[in-house]
């Protein structure tokens, strides 16, 4: 069984069929691109897999476990990390605290430790800060630990969000348009970053992206979505030459 198995999921909002029969299998070390025009249902796929709302039909398995109807925070704890299309960092917290928030659910101290500086709390907080340092370094943000995210550039905020997702210790990482709003230099850096963390941490990645140069260059497989349906699956090479894709997606860009 693959690390992530999504089997024939459906999701609609009123009359809008946002996902119709979507399936995917992903393993450690793989990068799967998901592309498609606006409103194709890409973000809804992520929301359904990660448990924001359950699929109406179909099943999702993570590492052999059925997570279809599980609550969102439980799915995260089983090994799912994600970023958001519109950056959703926590305001009122520093960069380090933002990343720590993804460690806190794993942190092993009780309410007593929440009120008093017990040795156990100190030990766990130290462990968390070390992991923060590790993941912020992995995305090149180690020098901004005490900054507030709102004072950082868009590209930097995206990196902090990736570090926060890494802190969830994911087996599968979901990246929703990580290059949106970035300039070409930043896109190149991000492409390198995604390839590198995929190697370094060995999780599987699902990547939604509009910037084709990014997604085509690092994905092993590409799913093309349109109006909730998968219109093509294949290697970047294959989908680029698929006439349906050219019509529905690539053609639109011209």
């Amino acid at each position, binding site marked *: 069984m693959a690390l992530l198995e999504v089997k024939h999921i459906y999701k609609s909002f009123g009359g809008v069929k946002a996902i119709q029969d979507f399936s995917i299998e992903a393993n450690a070390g793989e990068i799967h691109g998901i592309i498609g025009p606006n409103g194709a249902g890409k973000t809804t796929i992520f929301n359904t897999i*990660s448990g*924001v709302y359950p699929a109406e039909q179909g099943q999702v398995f993570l590492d052999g476990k059925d997570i279809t109807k599980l*609550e*969102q*925070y439980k799915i*995260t*704890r089983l090994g799912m990390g*994600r970023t*958001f299309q519109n950056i*959703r*960092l*926590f*305001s*009122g*917290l520093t960069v380090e*605290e*933002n990343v*720590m*928030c*993804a*460690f*806190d*659910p*794993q*942190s092993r*101290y009780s*309410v007593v*430790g*929440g*009120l*008093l*500086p017990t040795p156990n*709390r100190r030990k*766990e*907080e130290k462990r*968390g800060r070390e992991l923060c340092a590790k993941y912020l370094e992995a995305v090149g943000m180690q020098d901004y630990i005490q900054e507030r995210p709102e004072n950082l550039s868009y590209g930097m905020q995206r990196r902090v969000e990736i570090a*926060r997702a890494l*802190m*969830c210790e994911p087996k599968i990482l979901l990246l929703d348009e990580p290059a949106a709003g970035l300039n070409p230099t930043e896109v190149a850096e991000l492409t390198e970053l995604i390839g590198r963390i995929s190697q370094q941490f060995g999780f599987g990645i699902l990547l939604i992206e509009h910037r084709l140069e990014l997604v085509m260059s690092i994905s092993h497989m590409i799913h093309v979505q349109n109006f909730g349906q998968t219109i093509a699956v294949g290697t970047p090479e294959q989908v680029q030459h698929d006439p349906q894709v050219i019509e529905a997606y690539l053609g639109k860009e011209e």
Partner: protein
Amino acid sequence: MSALVSNVLTQVFITLIAVAGVYVLTGLTGMFSLGQAAFMAIGAYASGLLVKNAHLPIPVAMVLAVLMAVAVGYLIGYPVVRLRRDYISLVTLGFGEAIAALLNRMTSLTGGASGLTGIPRTVGLGITAVSAVVAVALVASFKCSKYGRQCIALRGDPLAAQAMGINVTRVKMIAFLLSVALTAYSGCLYAFYMSYVDPSGFGWKKSADWVIMVFFGGVNSLTGSTIGAFVLSGLPQVLRGLQNYRYVIYAVLVLIILNFKPSGLLGEWELTPRNIKRLFARKKKPADKGEV
């Protein structure tokens, strides 16, 4: 110290403990309770009755009263931590008024509207001052812990918080129960300081007062909330001589602050060693420039 000053300070410290609880609830976690004073009433009546009727030692009675309030808090918290913000205010408002009505009705036990009398007067300025300092220190520690961070995270974005593995309802419940425990404890101190409690002081107006104190000082700052509690609960006592004008002064002060600084007196500034250092560092800079 004159009796008047001591009396004002004692009452301010008792209020401060409750306000520290409201800070956890409203400041850290973004939940508005209009029934918080009911937990103060539970603390006051339960501890008073346990001493008066069951003849328990006062500290034991206080611990039991706080635990009782927490148990009630757990029941009312079950819907509260799952509801949207505006509904939370409604549910807690209903709960608070129900408790006040209950205290009024159960005359044989509580003395009804004429109140519960004859509670031994054993609490003074010393114990309330120490309690207030400990309460604020515990809340400060809570804020810097994983719980405080998770509260701030879910306050701003519950969906993203869940996506990071945060069990939003559980963290909210912990924050709610901590605030209940603090409020109930302040009620215990109140009972044994006043030696008399009646239901009229525990309605939604008191709960709203506490929320105002938190907002006045800075909803994102424990330091600010503490100052808010001091100023706004001390002021009416100090201005007692001015009769009705004191409420006008109170209202004008609150309006001025919230108009010109919506995030409260201190915003989110906290009294920490690092922030103090920064404050002085910043003050120096303009002087340096002046010399050039």
